[in-house]
């Protein structure tokens, strides 16, 4: 099964990105083959709807779980609509989170925030 993690850099020891929709990359880790790959997040510079576009990238990657510190409402709607499970990442790098996930130490992400839209005076 593939899992996805928003990351700042293209390496297993990268930080987990503080933002899902605006992270630089997604680490896609295959729990069966132990292989990892990185996808660029094309939503990072979107003026709006970044979470939706980022979530579409995850849906298309075939990942079935996302490990993230937080997730906005719109992104969560897309991910959950595709049957993707959301887990709350813990402190530590991406690899440590993969281990925590494998050991079933991560809890389900149930706080979905309403988004960080409209920073800077309602740019729409």
């Amino acid at each position: 099964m593939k899992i996805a993690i928003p990351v700042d850099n293209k390496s297993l020891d990268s930080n987990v990105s503080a933002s899902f929709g605006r992270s630089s990359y997604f680490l896609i880790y295959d729990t069966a083959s132990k292989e990892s790959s990185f996808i660029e997040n094309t939503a990072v510079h979107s003026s709006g709807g970044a979470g939706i576009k980022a979530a579409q990238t995850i849906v298309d990657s075939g990942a079935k779980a996302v490990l993230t510190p937080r997730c906005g409402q719109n992104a969560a709607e897309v991910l959950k609509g595709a049957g993707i499970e959301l887990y709350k990442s813990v402190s530590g790098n991406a690899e440590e989170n993969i281990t925590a996930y494998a050991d079933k130490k991560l809890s389900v992400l149930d706080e979905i925030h309403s988004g960080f839209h409209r920073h800077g005076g309602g740019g729409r």
Partner: protein
Amino acid sequence: MKIAVLSGKGGAGKTLVSVNLATAANTSAYIDCDVEEPNGRLFLKPERIVEEEITVKIPQVDTDLCDGCRRCVDFCIFNALAFTNRLLVFDDICHSCGGCVLVCPNKAFTERDKAIGRIQTGSSNGIEVITGILNTGEPSGVPLINELMKKAERLEGYVFIDCPPGSACTVMESIKDADYCILVAEPTLFGVHNLNMVYELVRLFNKPFGAVINKCLEGEENPAETFCRGNGIEVLCSIPFDSELGELNSNAEIAVYKDKKYRGMFVSLLERIKQEVKRA
């Protein structure tokens, strides 16, 4: 003649200036484009109000016709669409451009009207008062302001446009047809920062403009005035930091009606603007 009144922050005095200028002008209209918190009506107290609802078009998809080709998802620059095992439409992200409807090869979209707010038109001592009111929670006031600007088209005489604060899309929409822009600023360093935002905006739009500095203390430092001098910005008027004016304003009174000194100040400001517009 359309005169837009804008400032980089809220509470600088846009409504004070635009309401009093509208009152000082003999025939005029006042348009409140600050659609998230329109308050000019509290001062002008318009009567015989006619209200109309403003809607935008939102796409809805017939899932039986959608084959998941995702052309619409790829087309939508606003990221308002996603495809999982079915198409998802995010109303709040949609900018009502209609592009998805056009690119869909299966004609799976229809559009429905979504109410985003209303426009009230009334009159107050000969001033036509037009107020845009955005529904709470609506993400964008732009379509509503666009409707307000259409109404401004048919108006004659002086039309004062009370803009939203800041320099974002809603402000651009409010000033796009203006013949002249008044930048209202406070005489502080923070005021200078906000003044610079709208100063950049009006230059980008190639609009003639001048500044009004509000809440000025005599003998005190005035960084906004210094900024104006340094950048060759005409200071049209300096309004004093005056408790009497503050009290009139907090009681939703119009200074021009209540105080001779302020009537004189706003009549002169109006004259000054008329000359500036002629020159521009």
